[in-house]
């Protein structure tokens, strides 16, 4: 009994000044999506940026093709089941909220560039995800099925009608480039940008500093206090 109490006390003190942001399933789903997407982007880039083949050896590019196909299985099959079984409610709310931009969100998007470049700005209060994250989420929620469907179609492109195969390549490539842009911005904001990077602990331990949550997601933070 005393030991349990001691453990609980240590646990509580460890999370003092922090709020719980993402559960284990959300974190696993996020990292599966993130890591597989980056591997797919990197191994597929040789197909959309011609100059890369002058830098990389043929054997390397051939092995990229193999890695691309194997990684695609994890990209396709893991994220949704993990969210479904481990974070159904949170994932549902995330999808719904991602496509709802309120007045504060629109204001946020207009002013965010100032924060991005380190200029002084007063950003409007945000919910569990800020408007920039909502845009990124929209792109991922729409982009993921596009990449999965067109990607698996391309594995069997020899069996598709020629025009369909050509459009499939075009859509797969352009969606990859657009999502690549979003991911670059997301990684930068999550790991380098001085104002937003404290949030990365939310995707590692699940906990984020309270002061940071209060400053960045005021509406969400207030809802936790109720």
């Amino acid at each position, binding site marked *: 009994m005393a030991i349990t109490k001691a453990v609980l006390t240590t646990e509580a003190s460890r999370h003092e000044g922090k709020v719980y942001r993402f559960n284990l399933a959300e974190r696993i789903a996020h990292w599966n999506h993130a890591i597989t997407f980056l591997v797919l982007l990197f191994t597929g880039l*040789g*197909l*959309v*940026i*011609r100059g890369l*083949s*002058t830098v990389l050896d*043929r054997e390397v*590019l*051939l092995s990229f*093709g193999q890695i691309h196909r194997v990684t695609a299985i994890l990209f396709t099959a893991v994220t949704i089941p993990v969210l479904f079984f481990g974070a159904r409610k949170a994932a549902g709310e995330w999808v719904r909220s991602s496509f709802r931009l309120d007045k504060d969100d629109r204001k946020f998007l207009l002013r965010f560039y100032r924060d*991005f*470049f*380190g*200029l002084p700005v007063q950003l409007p209060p945000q919910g569990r995800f800020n408007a920039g994250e909502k845009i990124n989420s929209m792109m991922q929620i729409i982009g993921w099925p596009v990449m999965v469907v067109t990607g698996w179609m391309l594995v069997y*492109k*020899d069996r598709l009608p*020629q*025009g369909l*195969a*050509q*459009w499939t*390549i*075009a859509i797969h*490539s*352009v969606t*990859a*480039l*657009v999502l*690549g*842009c979003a991911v*670059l*911005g997301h990684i*930068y904001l999550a790991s*380098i*940008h*001085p104002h937003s990077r404290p949030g990365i602990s939310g995707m590692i331990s699940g906990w984020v500093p309270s002061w940071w949550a209060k400053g960045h997601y005021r509406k969400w933070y207030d809802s936790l206090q109720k």
Partner: protein
Amino acid sequence: MARYAYFVDLSICAGCESCTVACQNKNGLPPEQVFTKVHREEAGTFPAVTSTFVTTQCMHCDNPPCTEVCPTGASYKTADGPVVVDDAKCIGCRYCITACPYDARIVDEDERVVKKCTLCFDRLQAGQQPACVQTCLTGARAVGDLDDPQSPIHALIKKPNTIQIAGTSFFYRLPEGFARNVLPADFKASGATFAWQSIFQPIGQVMLAGVTGALLVSVVSNAINARRQQQEGGEAHGDH
């Protein structure tokens, strides 16, 4: 530099397929893979029916889409006209197969490369005829340089019933009683390939470069900001 053109006189083609076999032999192809195909076309209504053979292969397009979509530059059009593949650069992505309007490419699964008729470019460079031309029993096939006034190709392509497949290096002479539609279609650029190569891909690359640039500016401006704040903090601290 030459400007090679290919002529096939279908009015004397015997359909013997020796061109197919000579090409397979020259290129080390297995029996089920061919660069040069021969098929039969019929015209008329029974009992007044006639037939001809039509040969097809890579048409060596003027603006080949296979080379446009090749991400490594392995497929390219030589200055002399023939479209070839550099095995050392090919990564077997098959984008060229998807783009080819004439179904003229095959995959070598063992070497993981795409292969095609090169108009026997190595032989042409050595002053020889392509294997299919050399072996043709009836002399129905010919290759010549359109820029060489002495080349017999000029007389051949002036023969009656000769049709150029627009946008390609190929000329066919049709037998009497056959219409243009038995021949491969004129070259037509694909809307999808154009959109992908000339619109989507450049825009995507510019976006990627733009985002990278914005991130770099952000890194610098935030660093300057942090230093300024540090200095202001230091000065304020010194004042106390």
